[in-house]
């Protein structure tokens, strides 16, 4: 991934032009994407700008679980973006399929259609969360999310081990080797 970051730093030093691709989203994520273009959040200070055609774009923002009718179109739009390209999956639907991950007419996440480089979970993600994802791709901030693992008890349990010894001591009949 560090190699990819170096490549991203070299390839996108000044301006990242973004193509926004709605693949059957509920427009929640689309509104948040438009929100980060406003002066309050203002992604244009990073040189990020929405463009209408994938041929002009460096990166692709996908929102929505990829529905079956849009699947070939998403692949087509992805192929139209010149290399090197970045793909951001915005929202829970693009990340893992959302509530529709196993529905018959939904592919279930953008990663099933194309290769997604960065996922931004949230339903919808806050505008700050999208900014954070873009800043992560540009190498401005460090990643915060990490898998969490919790355990109520560590194995082997001492109590069980001691009980086992106690049981073994009190064997009445023992099979003797001949």
């Amino acid at each position, binding site marked *: 991934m560090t190699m990819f970051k170096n490549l991203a730093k070299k390839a996108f030093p000044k301006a990242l032009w973004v193509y926004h691709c709605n693949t059957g989203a509920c427009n929640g994520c689309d509104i948040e994407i438009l929100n980060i273009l406003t002066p309050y959040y203002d992604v244009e200070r990073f040189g990020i700008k929405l463009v209408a055609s994938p041929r002009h774009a460096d990166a692709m923002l996908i929102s929505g679980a990829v529905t079956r009718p849009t699947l070939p179109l998403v692949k087509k739009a992805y192929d139209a973006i010149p290399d090197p390209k970045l793909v951001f999956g915005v929202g*829970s639907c693009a990340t893992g399929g959302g509530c529709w991950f196993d529905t018959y007419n939904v592919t279930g996440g953008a990663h099933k259609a194309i290769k997604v480089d960065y*996922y931004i979970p949230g339903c919808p993600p806050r505008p700050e969360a999208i900014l954070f994802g873009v800043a992560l791709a540009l190498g401005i901030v460090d990643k915060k999310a990490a898998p969490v693992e919790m355990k109520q008890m560590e194995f082997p349990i001492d109590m069980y081990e001691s009980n086992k010894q106690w049981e073994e001591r009190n064997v009445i009949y023992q099979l003797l080797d001949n």
Partner: protein
Amino acid sequence: MVLKPGVVTLKYPFEPMPAPATFRGSPTWDHHKCVGCGACSNHCSARCILVRDVCQELRVMLYDGSRCTYCGRCAEICPEDAITITTEFELATEDTNDVTERMELFMLTCQRCGRCYDMENSNVIERLDLRGYRYDSLETRALIRTTTDQLDQNMLKKTENYQRPTKKG
């Protein structure tokens, strides 16, 4: 006329910008409080909380944050208040495994029968549970059928009277 122009733009990625306290971010479990009832799993709208019984004494709860809709239903329904909805929203990763949580629960068992609960198989799903059916199992979405070793002629004869679906029109 603007006498004193100001700057409205946030300095967000360079300065922290915490979300308001009412914001629903990623949920977290408290493994000291959880009793492993699985209510969160039953009420999850995206079915991203899965329950796995590894053995009689060990229950593993998995949370897949990649498809979580952050509705907060799990925290609302939890009888022990073991789930808290944090205001954490900076979840962007390149790997969806980073937003997962895994919790191993140690379930106390009955000293006499060695099981967790009195298995009163009161409803159909619980009776199917014993045969290997998992309501939330995404890998095996159907009942795992136990077959006999050899073809049972009596069982085959019983199926002769079964109503077959007929084609209409």
